[in-house]
């Protein structure tokens, strides 16, 4: 089967979260007949359980569909779904590199949001043609013309003839498909040139080894082609090539320039294939690797430990496999007095952390203890050296510290003017420095703040949503490091310091945080045989104390013939609960206590 390059369209859909990107993808798949509507499960492309449950896209997903256009020709669409959350920008960027154009979905009622802009700029950076689509036009509050004007004013792209659609109810989807045919360019490149394919994703399959997702920029790859990964130099014989059905891999004879597909080559070592690397033909290599991706650096770190120390190597294997699929994840081994052997892991943000944690627990069936997340601090020592601190336990003695720096971000918060007051108040509480405000139009404002990263990694997003009734949206990028008055808050349980509970905090709020932390831990740590003092200390000075009272009564008064099976179940449950505890000296600390610091701002 030879494919006419002029009939291929490689595109993605970009949008602010909740503007209907995945729903439109579903509609396109349905309309082009890959699946009948009966077979459609809502949001086909979100195939991780986690994605469906949370209603978000985490991983970029790719699907190939065939569309019979109004001109009578059949076109191959490679549709790449992309995540919308700020934490997953990196995924977006990778997907865009595989595309020639992008559909920009904008909510007809909400208009442009922060993430809309961020994604559009990413797309323009990759030289993609952007075609706007106005979604949710059937909402009572829809104002399509206002949104069209907004797109033209703010983004500066032509939008007067943007399709007005409802992805949910299948209105005007045809117009979107025709726009893809006519407005997104066909790919270029020659199938006869030396092979150059960009790896934009990969995953590990127990039978096939590593499955490499790539966009063929030049040349041809087929079964038997000896391929070389240009960055690592590793070479393999191609076993299979193919393209993406909905949730399945469909083998084909060859992939040629312009196509999007996958390659398998019995690649066992996940480290041999790096996302962003170029695949070429070992016998006839291309001269230059394709430009890869900007390396992303994690901004949030935490310790991850197996609940059962015996599962350390399982955790390591799981992280290795996840990293293959999620290049933004970083990890290195560390040890904790309280928790034993584990890993210090780096994430793009807190949502990313939570997602990885849940994936480890669900997909790899691991029981984890996660420590409080933190950012990277720069510690300038008196001897002139600087250390990058990701684990609070490694903070040098205060006498050796000249000063410390913490990362700050420049944040843009888009909000309707009604909520400007409460949002500014929130930013001030979080040590924000006001940079300015722009009115996008009469009812919407863009607030600009410089905020310390460690003030926004926990629950800033939630606080923002609750203070703006969900109307605020938020984007940030790392701005740099500033000197700051920081200190390490230690937690002592039963008079012993628990390293895994320590965290770095601004000196002004340290005592308050210590108090709240003790209160929280008092609730999280179950009563035990003896009284347990919980203390917060800064540099050896106790700043707060709570006490977990001794357990006095845990007894089942009656246990007769009919109660025995039930009693057994009760004891089994209790035993299960004990397993989820960490023995620390004489004290048992439940796993979730290590995350207690996250919930300090609940009230």
């Amino acid at each position, binding site marked *: 089967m030879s494919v006419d390059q002029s009939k291929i369209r490689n595109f993605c859909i970009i949008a602010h979260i909740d503007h209907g990107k995945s729903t439109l993808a579903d509609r396109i798949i349905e309309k082009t007949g890959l699946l009948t509507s009966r077979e459609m499960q809502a949001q086909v492309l979100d195939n991780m359980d986690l994605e469906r449950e949370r209603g978000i896209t985490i991983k970029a997903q790719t699907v190939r569909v065939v569309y019979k256009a109004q001109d009578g020709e059949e076109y191959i669409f490679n549709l790449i779904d992309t995540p919308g959350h700020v934490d997953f920008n990196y995924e977006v960027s990778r997907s865009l590199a595989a595309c020639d154009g992008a559909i920009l979905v904008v909510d007809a009622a909400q208009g442009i949001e922060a993430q809309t802009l961020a994604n559009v700029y990413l797309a323009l950076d990759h030289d993609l043609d952007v075609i706007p689509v106005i979604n949710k036009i059937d909402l009572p509050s829809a104002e399509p013309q206002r949104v069209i004007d907004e797109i033209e004013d703010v983004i500066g792209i032509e939008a007067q003839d943007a399709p007005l659609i409802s992805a949910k109810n299948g209105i005007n989807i045809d117009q979107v498909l025709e726009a893809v045919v006519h407005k997104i360019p066909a790919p270029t490149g020659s199938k006869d040139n030396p092979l150059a394919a960009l790896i934009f994703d990969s995953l590990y399959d127990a039978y096939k080894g590593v499955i490499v997702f790539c966009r063929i920029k030049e040349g041809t790859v087929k079964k038997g082609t000896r391929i070389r990964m240009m960055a690592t130099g590793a070479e393999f014989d191609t076993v299979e090539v193919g393209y993406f059905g909905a949730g399945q891999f469909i083998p084909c004879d060859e992939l040629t320039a312009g196509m999007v597909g996958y390659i398998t080559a019995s690649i066992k070592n996940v480290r041999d294939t790096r996302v962003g690397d170029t695949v070429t033909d070992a016998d006839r290599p291309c001269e230059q690797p394709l430009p890869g991706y900007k390396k992303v650096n994690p901004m949030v770190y935490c310790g991850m430990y197996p609940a059962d120390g015996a599962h350390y190597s399982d955790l390591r294997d799981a992280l290795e496999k996840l990293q293959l699929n999620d290049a933004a994840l970083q990890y290195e081994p560390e040890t904790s007095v309280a928790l034993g052997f584990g890993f210090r892991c780096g994430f793009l943000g807190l949502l990313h952390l939570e997602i990885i944690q849940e994936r480890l627990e669900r997909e790899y069936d691991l029981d984890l203890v996660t420590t409080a997340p933190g950012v990277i601090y720069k510690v300038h020592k008196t001897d002139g050296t600087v250390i990058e601190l990701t684990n609070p336990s490694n903070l040098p003695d205060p006498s050796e510290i000249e000063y410390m720096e913490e990362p700050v971000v420049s944040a843009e918060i888009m909000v309707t003017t009604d909520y400007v007051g409460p949002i500014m108040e929130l930013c001030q509480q979080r040590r924000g420095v006001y940079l300015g405000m722009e009115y996008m139009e009469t009812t919407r404002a863009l607030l600009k703040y410089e905020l310390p990263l460690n003030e926004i990694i926990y629950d800033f997003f939630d606080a923002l949503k609750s203070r703006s009734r969900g109307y605020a949206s938020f984007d940030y990028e790392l701005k740099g490091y500033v000197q700051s008055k920081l200190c390490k808050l230690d937690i002592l349980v039963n008079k012993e310091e628990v390293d895994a509970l320590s965290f770095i905090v601004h000196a002004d709020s340290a005592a308050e945080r210590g108090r709240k932390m003790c209160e929280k831990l008092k609730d999280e740590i179950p009563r035990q*045989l003896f009284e347990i003092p919980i203390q917060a200390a800064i540099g050896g000075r106790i700043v707060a104390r709570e006490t977990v009272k001794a*357990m*006095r*009564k*845990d*007894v*089942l*008064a*009656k*246990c*007769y*013939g*009919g109660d*025995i*099976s039930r*009693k*057994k179940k*009760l*004891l*089994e449950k*209790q*035993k299960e609960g*004990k397993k989820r505890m960490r023995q620390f000296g004489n004290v048992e600390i439940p796993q979730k206590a290590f995350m207690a610091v996250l919930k300090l701002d609940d009230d």
Partner: protein
Amino acid sequence: MGSDTIRQKGIYIHIPFCISKCIYCDFCSAPADEDTKEQYVSALCREIRQAGIEAEQKGENRTASTVFFGGGTPSILRSAQIVEIMNAVREAFRLTDDAEITMECNPGTLTKEKLETYRYAGVNRLSIGLQSTNNRDLKNLGRIHTYEQFEESYIEARLAGFNNINVDIMSAIPGQTPEKYAENLRRVVALKTEHISAYSLIVEENTPLYDMVERTHGRILPSEEDDRRMYTMTKEILGEAGYNRYEISNYAKPGYECRHNCFYWNRTEYLGFGIAAASLSGNRRYTNTSDMASYLANPIHNRAEEQILTVEDEMEEYMFLGLRMMKGVDKTEFARLFGKDYDEVYGDITRRHIEQGLMAAEGSRLCLTDIGIDISNTVMADYIL
């Protein structure tokens, strides 16, 4: 007891009827009309007779040394119905001469006629659900009787010749103070009953009490301090009066321990008849259906649940049931029953419990200490393998 215990057998008969349901009750029990009761008794007799036939066919031991009528309120039945059931039991099983035959009853349902018929049918032990000597407590719990009515029933029972009587009392009742509870204990002690079961009130889910406690965030219950004081008082006052604590909640004058209940804790075989009744036979635990209509239609082998116990299950049960008794468990017996060295299975954890002062060892015996009893669930959970 020892090896003799193993060859013994107990019979439990569940009577799921009561006059009205108490607010804390989660047992399988409800008020019912005469017709249902009549049908139930005949279904019960069918089930008992069938069990006898099957035991005979399999050549199993048909000798039983205890019968226990539990409920509900068994004494709600007409006395003729009790006789009918006892006849079925005697037909199906051979009762030993010294068999302990217990009837649970509630004050206000007992009459001279009933008590005399029970004696005639062979009942030789009564277990009376008094719960409290304080009428306000009784009202709070939704009980149908007053203390005065209890006293009448009690005297009547003595007159009818019952010389082995248990009284149930309860601590930590909403509104109860330690002082009032102490008065309770003294009044019961003065009655010179042979046996006292003293429970602390358990708030079970799916009861009106549970909802009340939830609604008030536990404010209606006595404080933890008071609860503890009442608990300590029970041991002290009953101990002084010559009652021997032989299980977490059970006290008896020497020689009057409830044989039937000990069967449960010693894992002696017992067969349960009637809806929701549980049995332990060999290595099988099973429970009858708790659906009345279904049971009436088919009382034979109508089971809601059946479990084959593995050796591990049996070892776990041996521990968490055995440790309920003050005499505790025995390492030698453990080895004999399961063919495994106790220390190999539980040595480490027991050593830790002894260090922590939760358990005590005496020769080959191990038992919970007072602190161990207080938090016995936590201790027992460590014996789940």
